[in-house]
């Protein structure tokens, strides 16, 4: 029945037929450039490439030991919104929270998509290695199902810190690890943070779909543009740090924007763009809400950073 990938018309014509204007499309591409820290002048080039290449890319989204927070995070993307992502940009063949199908029909969708190949595989949540029974799907170990899907994927994206490095579950006894650890020899793109930052995922997807290649990755296989500098580097509270002004009492109106180091801030050790591009459509981010960075995008997170709220001056 399915004939995805065999389109005669160009991607852009298809988009146009679905009511996406050229202007909207250029906006998406500009957004990709901005998110990846690329020269905005590249947007028309990306658009041009995308017009030729773009068709709805099949996606398999698997959930291991997670909390669905990364799925929820993707749904909180505003520009493009979730409707555009789900119906126009991607062909979501398997997503346990979104898909209509249950049980065998869901499994069948998964298997058909794997048989066709040429899909993007996304992992949310960690994978237990101590005993397969800690995460089972369709009565089978999740680890095996994930490996099967990864074997024929075009690219594998680990979203959120659990899927990248094990995250919080790694601190437990289930042997929780990230995607790369169970896929030696496969290049996994890591998008750590808890949850995944939606503009990073959308930016990466758009870049990959339009360019057919990955952006530059760092030594932890993260897109360099998102993880090049520490939060501390661009923190708007930085001046107070330099002056030795630290917030001690959240009620004191005179110190509200002082440095959060004494509240346990991990911003000096955490590579992320949070301070530059905020969360939830630019509404806020942890530091601006008076909360110390918990280091949620780092491989050390959580166990390596515990306890989170201690003033480092007083020692752990």
């Amino acid at each position: 029945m399915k004939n995805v990938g065999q389109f005669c018309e160009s991607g852009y014509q298809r988009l146009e037929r679905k009511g996406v204007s050229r202007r909207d499309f250029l906006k998406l591409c500009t957004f990709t450039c901005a998110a990846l820290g690329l020269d905005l002048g590249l947007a028309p080039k990306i658009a041009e490439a995308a017009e030729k290449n773009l068709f709805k890319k099949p996606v398999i989204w698997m959930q291991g030991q997670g909390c669905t927070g990364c799925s929820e995070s993707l749904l909180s993307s505003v520009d493009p919104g979730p409707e555009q992502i789900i119906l126009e940009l991607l062909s979501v063949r398997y997503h346990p929270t979104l898909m209509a199908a249950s049980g065998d029909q869901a499994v069948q969708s998964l298997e058909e998509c794997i048989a066709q190949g040429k899909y993007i595989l996304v992992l949310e949540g960690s994978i237990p290695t101590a005993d397969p029974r800690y995460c089972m799907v369709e009565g089978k170990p999740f680890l095996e199902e994930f490996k099967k899907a990864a074997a024929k994927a075009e690219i594998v994206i680990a979203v959120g810190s659990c899927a990248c490095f094990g995250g919080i579950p790694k601190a437990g006894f289930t042997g929780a690890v990230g995607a790369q650890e169970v896929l030696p020899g496969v290049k996994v793109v890591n998008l750590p943070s808890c949850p995944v930052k939606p503009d990073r995922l959308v930016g990466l997807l758009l870049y990959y779909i339009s360019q057919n290649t990955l952006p530059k990755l760092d030594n932890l296989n993260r897109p360099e543009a998102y993880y090049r500098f520490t939060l501390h580097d661009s923190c708007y509270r930085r001046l107070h740090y330099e002056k030795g002004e630290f917030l001690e009492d959240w009620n004191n109106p005179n110190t509200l924007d002082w440095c959060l180091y004494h509240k346990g801030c991990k911003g000096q050790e955490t590579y992320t763009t949070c301070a530059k591009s905020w969360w939830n459509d630019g509404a806020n981010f942890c530091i601006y809400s008076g909360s110390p960075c918990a280091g949620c995008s780092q491989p050390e997170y959580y166990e390596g950073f515990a306890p989170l709220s201690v003033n480092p001056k007083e020692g752990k």
Partner: protein
Amino acid sequence: MAKRVVIDPVTRVEGHLRVEVEIDNGVVKNAWVQGTMFRGIEQILKGKDPRDAVHITERVCGVCMTSHGWTSALAVEDAQGAKVPRAAQLIRNLMAGALWLHDHPLHFYHLSALDYVDVLAIANYKGKDSKLLALKDKVMALVQTGDTAPLTPRYQPDSYSVKDPDTVTTLLAHYMEALEIQGKAKKMSAILGGKQPHQASIVVGGVTNYPKKEQLEAFRTLLNDVVSFAELVYIPDVVSVCTGPLLSLGRSGFGAGPGSYLAYGGFSMDEAGSKKLFKGGVISSKNPGVVQELDISQITESVASSWYREGGPFTPWEESTEVDLDKKGAYSFAKSPRYNGEAVEVGPLARMMVLQHSGLLDLMSRYGIKPGAIARHLARAKETSLICEAMYRWLDELEGLLKTNAPIHDTRAWEVAAQGQGVGLIEAPRGSLGHWVKIENKVISNYQLVVPTTWNASPRDEKNVAGPIEQALIGLPVNPDNPVNIVRVIRSFDPCLACAVHLIHTDGEKVVRV
């Protein structure tokens, strides 16, 4: 002869859920509900700084993170004797309230509606509404390219499915609109919380975000959008579908639970917490219609059918969580919470029953709708109305307080107590949520979560009493080749399996899979 049917994965619920049923002559004779994922959050918390529990437990669930973070803070605050300032209480109410306004419409449109709506009937839409026609074109374009994922494949629409093209097209348009709205609701919560999912600003003692004037203005603007969607689109949709095309299902009491209900109550309306938006209380099936006072010492958890070391039932204070993967007779790692020995339902229907909410009860009696799957959807919509109204009251009160530089944090409570024990009890979107914490030598010595889905999706206890979802499935008419009724009933509870952290799956026998 009875046929055993497995649905795994049950999708469009939070987390990993597997259900097995025995169907005889078109009726479910027996049911086993199992979660299939385990992280061991409670074990991770042992030995940790009690303040970290807020950060960790909000990550128990990426859908109801504010409820968990808040409950955890309440538990540790209880243990440390903190007094949370009113402004901080209000900020928590507003953050959590925003997520209820995110959760309930999302549950209806994105998690449930596809079980009741024949989406492809949009092909027959003959109306003139330009927005709906554009949507029809969009969906038909997907159909033509043979790529209608994730809307298909699906169970076949049956005699209860909504097929009227106008209704279907309108509902699908609202499905899309609700996608945008849930993003806005999360953004609201992020304005006060730092980000969503997984807010940063709830901490032991209060909150960290001293809201600026422009933040509250932005919050109010988004609140207007979200409330108008809830009041003008979501709630009317639920009521008209449940009292229209799904009325016969509602009247049949399809998916009725045990008939016992529990609510802890939640959302304090004054500083002392003496008045709450949702009342706490218990209704026993042995004494229907009578709301009894809640006594939390009556809460115990059985591990009779669970892969835990035998013992108990224990109260959450006394429990440990020692895994025994090879325990005989166990079929799930869900513990079985019971109130005074009874399996009780929690969630919107339970809350509204305990509240004796006249709007819902009148609607049910006017249309002859019995407690069950359809009543759960109605209860969820009706309580959304209560939240909408309360949000404005909380926001006004907060604005007034902040003008007087009111505090947002009990600074004394930041220092960790040497020892203590505390409990946090609230209402989360999916039902009653409790965290129990014990602190010794300034670290957590025991942490237990009893979450809504553990109440609802619990396995059989030591007296072989089935859990509420299992009870709701037993007696259900089901076509074994198209078991859409099973998922309709399960989803009416809005289960959240990542929350039910004890859950783990045991290997089933070879059975028919559907």
